[in-house]
């Protein structure tokens, strides 16, 4: 029962995070793939930070930013009446930041592969830039989208450090699968830890197998 609640919460968190990132990550990836701005390397580096930072570092800073003692945290309390830390909403914010590179990088790669040629062709056929994005760039990047969505979802499912720092361990609110496993091990409930771990292992393997089978064209990279 305990485990089912954790699984359900994890699925919710990963779905919400993926949906939010699908919107913002696509916009950011599109901008990065098109811009000639000098700020591009800075934005790229910031986007890739979660790949190299220890989750505890990221979680620590997020905890501070989200704390009711600070502007953003207190604004959230003012807005909703509850704190951002140790809540599902806080987990979503943290996951969005933590999983950002997993959405942006495959998409940026895909958009760069599409190049400007098909978009010029679309413009010459009277498609507005937005229309050309939806009718040409997106379909031509379909595999990039698939990779990005799958990786983002899977990575969010697997996160631990950031969640622990920001969300703690509140059943039904912030206790996701990885936290539940930790909890089981701490309390020496190895059987329960086993079943969850095995499920996560199987899930992760299937997801990665799917991604690698479908394509290897839009890899995650740190540059």
């Amino acid at each position, binding site marked *: 029962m305990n485990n089912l609640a954790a699984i359900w919460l994890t699925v919710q968190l990963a779905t919400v995070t993926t949906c939010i990132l699908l919107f913002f990550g696509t916009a950011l990836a599109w901008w990065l793939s098109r811009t000639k701005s000098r700020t591009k390397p800075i934005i790229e580096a910031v986007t890739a930070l979660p790949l190299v930072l220890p989750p505890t570092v990221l979680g620590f800073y997020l905890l501070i930013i989200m704390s009711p003692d600070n502007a953003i945290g207190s604004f959230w309390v003012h807005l909703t009446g509850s704190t951002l830390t140790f809540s599902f909403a806080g987990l979503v914010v943290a996951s969005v930041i933590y999983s950002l590179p997993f959405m942006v990088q495959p998409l940026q790669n895909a958009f760069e592969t599409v190049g400007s040629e098909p978009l*010029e062709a679309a413009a010459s056929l*009277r498609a507005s*830039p937005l229309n050309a994005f939806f009718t040409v760039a997106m379909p031509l990047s379909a595999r990039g989208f698939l990779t990005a969505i799958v990786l983002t979802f899977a990575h969010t499912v697997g996160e631990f450090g950031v969640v622990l720092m920001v969300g703690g361990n509140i059943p039904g609110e912030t206790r996701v699968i990885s936290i539940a496993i930790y909890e089981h091990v701490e309390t020496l409930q190895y059987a329960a830890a086993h079943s969850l771990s095995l499920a996560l292992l199987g899930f992760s393997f299937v997801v990665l197998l799917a991604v690698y089978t479908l394509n290897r064209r839009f890899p995650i990279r740190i540059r």
Partner: protein
Amino acid sequence: MLAIDICTSLGEFELEVTTKIPLDGITGILGPSGSGKTTLLRVLAGFEPAEGRIIVDDEVWLDTKSKTEIAPHRRSLGYMFQDTRLFDHLSVAANLEYASSRTLSEIKKIVVDDVVDAFDLSPLLKRRPAELSGGEKQRVALARTLLTNPRFLVLDEPLSALDEQRRSDILPYIDTMASQFQVPALYVSHAVGEVAHIARRILALSNGRVQANGPTNEILERLDLLDVTGRFEAGSVVEATVIDHVERHRLTRLIIDGQTLTMPMEPGLAPGDQIRLRVRARDVALALIRPESISIRNILDATIVDLFHGPGSPYVEALVEFQKQRLRARITLASVEDLSLAVGMHVFVLIKSVTFESSLA
């Protein structure tokens, strides 16, 4: 009328074009590679930034002084890319529909059925671009471009990726585009032969500057444009009228400025047809007296109107005139001296071979 007055630079290269091009029929844009032909088209389409003005009829597309710049998708220009740029994720039919569905109904004169008929596309409609041959892709791309019902088309070396055989398969379709659909076009090429065949006018570019702009015949005759036209099969285009066919010798007899000429038989032609011929400069020789006992059959009277000798060249480019029409001849400098050839002299023109180009409607 297309009025262009633009300059732009890409790295080291500078393009500076000021010219006016009447928008009717096909205008060839000729020049060696790197002369700025494609850049000019990209500036017209709005894909490349430039300073200056572009005015199409009364519509201002670009005027950097008044900060006017029409977005590429709002410019009524059809762009046929060298690499066709068909959408790989759509079928041929969907590629055509993509263009047609985005065209305002009040300007939509050309519809999908028209181009499918004209370019023989019905067997291809369900296929994906990846399943088409090079020539088929070009046909679909040309059709797709026409479906936007543009004020004019720009074609960027549409035949350069095709072999000789495919080229001659496609050229009739480009003729169709101009004659049946009455869409004016700028046709970029570095092949004089292609341009001479289909273009009424030529804009000659060299090093990012306009070298000449005028009717095809005049430009091909111009001896000072050899670095643009002369690198290739230099020659002339002349107009002639069909007299009849000589079945026994497999020849067609023609009349050009009152003089008779023969060429290999073109059975499709009928007496009275007006046609265009292409004569390569190196297939033309000059003589001071009418040669006899010679295998060349086409010997015509003419007058030398120009002689041009490029520095360091063993050849002299001569321009001879019949009554009105003119022909280029490439002869050696030695011959010019031996025969004391000069402008105004009467000569006999020996034409070794004549190529049929096209019928004039």
